[in-house]
């Protein structure tokens, strides 16, 4: 990922008031699938994210946020690390239920549906999901929505309104952290709360640290024989 594209991710920090005593460092993975549209991609996404954060604790980090609604790598990273590891997929659905009874997920294209279906099934929240609506525009996980505001933002607004008015959504989730640039536009125009998943994870990381909480070791047991060396070897000399 280019420095410019990495900064487009980092811009998520600007929309939320954060503890000035906390430093956020944005690190791209060393290699990745081109996008997250099939199980092939999901497996690669998992391993690439685990690789990127596997030594976070030893490197002196106090917590890890994963910048994808797919929660890729979350479970494996938690099994390795004793510091809080937060990802927005599960967390934004659970946070939505703190604000209303039913949520809809607004997505760029239908190729993402499998990501949410998996989490919704795991959490058994099918009855709480009013809908998943797509605007049918291929996403760009590098430049995000830059340059496409005029075309994409009104489509997102129209789809979000349909979630509220036709499907009964009481809270809207942005289906991807790559949609963050549209959050302010949508939040101003919609009558229901809109969850911006990336910034939510930053606040949840702060909360976990302040409360002295992290994931349960019972739910995420440590490996008997960790092979962090093996994961490292896979990426070390890779030239994607």
């Amino acid at each position, binding site marked *: 990922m280019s420095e410019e594209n990495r900064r487009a991710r980092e811009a998520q920090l600007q929309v939320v008031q954060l503890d000035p005593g906390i430093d956020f460092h944005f690190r791209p993975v060393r290699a990745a699938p081109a996008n997250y549209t099939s199980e092939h991609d999901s497996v690669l996404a998992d391993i690439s994210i685990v690789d990127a954060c596997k030594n976070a604790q030893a490197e002196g980090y106090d917590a890890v946020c994963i910048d994808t609604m797919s929660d890729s790598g979350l479970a494996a990273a938690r099994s390795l690390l004793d510091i809080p590891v937060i990802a927005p997929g599960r967390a934004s659905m659970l946070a939505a239920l703190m604000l209303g009874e039913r949520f809809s997920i607004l997505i760029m294209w239908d190729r993402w549906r499998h990501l949410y279906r998996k989490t919704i099934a795991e959490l058994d929240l099918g009855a709480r999901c009013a809908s998943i609506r797509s605007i049918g525009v291929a996403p760009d996980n590098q430049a995000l929505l830059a340059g496409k505001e005029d075309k994409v933002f009104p489509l997102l607004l129209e789809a979000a309104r349909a979630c509220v008015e036709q499907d009964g959504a009481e809270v809207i989730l942005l289906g991807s952290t790559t949609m963050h640039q549209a959050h302010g536009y949508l939040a101003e125009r919609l009558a229901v709360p809109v969850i911006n998943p990336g910034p939510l994870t930053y606040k949840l990381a702060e909360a976990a640290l302040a409360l002295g909480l*992290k994931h349960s070791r019972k739910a995420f047991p440590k490996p008997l024989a960790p092979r962090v060396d093996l994961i490292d070897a896979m990426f070390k000399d890779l030239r994607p």
Partner: protein
Amino acid sequence: MPKILVIVPFALDEAGVARRKNQLKAVKLDPQSEFHFRPVKAGPTSFMSPHDWTLMDLAIFEAGAEAQAEGFDAVCIDTMSDSGMAALRSVLDIPVVSPGRASMLFALTLGSKFSVLAQWPPAIVRYKKAIAEYGLAQHCASVRSFDIPPDFDALLEGKQESAFPRMLEVCMRCVEEDGADVICLGSTTMHQAAAWLAERLPVPLINPGPLTYKLVESLLALKLAHSRACYPRPQAPKLPMLHAMLDAAAALSPAMRPSVVAVSKPPPEK
């Protein structure tokens, strides 16, 4: 600087409110945030029957109904029962956070099954009802009580030696026999035991009051509040009537003193 109203669900005197306020010390908070603790004017003295639940809904609703007009930026409700939350959300635009549902949902960000530690057997029925209503039954490993009657004023003060080890033993049964990944303290009145238990448990323990303080800070920072689609405004608000009702109730019964809570005191130890 954000001003946050914390509603204490019993009509406690100053010392009782101070014991609730100690929950602030368990968590690192934004130094800019100001938390104001306010007890309800009148309400139930026990919390185990639908009579009590209804009175508490009303009492908490009344205590916070004007919070926005009073200049508060958010409201926390200091009870796992979430009493009064829905009614307050219907009349307020500022975030209203209560720890019952929130701690169960938060638990699911840390593990896949939670257990709730209840004070005594009569408290269990309400958790079961709430968990079903929240649609979380499949994620609840168990609700177990440590079987010591509650004292909503003195809390667990003076009972460390008798109560804490029993609480720990019951939490361990939740983990080992029921498969809990996370323990939710069933009441904000158990906060004095939270650190002691957390140190000794192999799984995360959620201290519900402090969780609400961080959630409120998060919601304010993210500019989020409850959905109006879920909590519609009343067509004809009757807040003056509500206040008159609670003022009349307060005139009838003074702030809770130890003699008044005697009904919920534990039997003398043998």
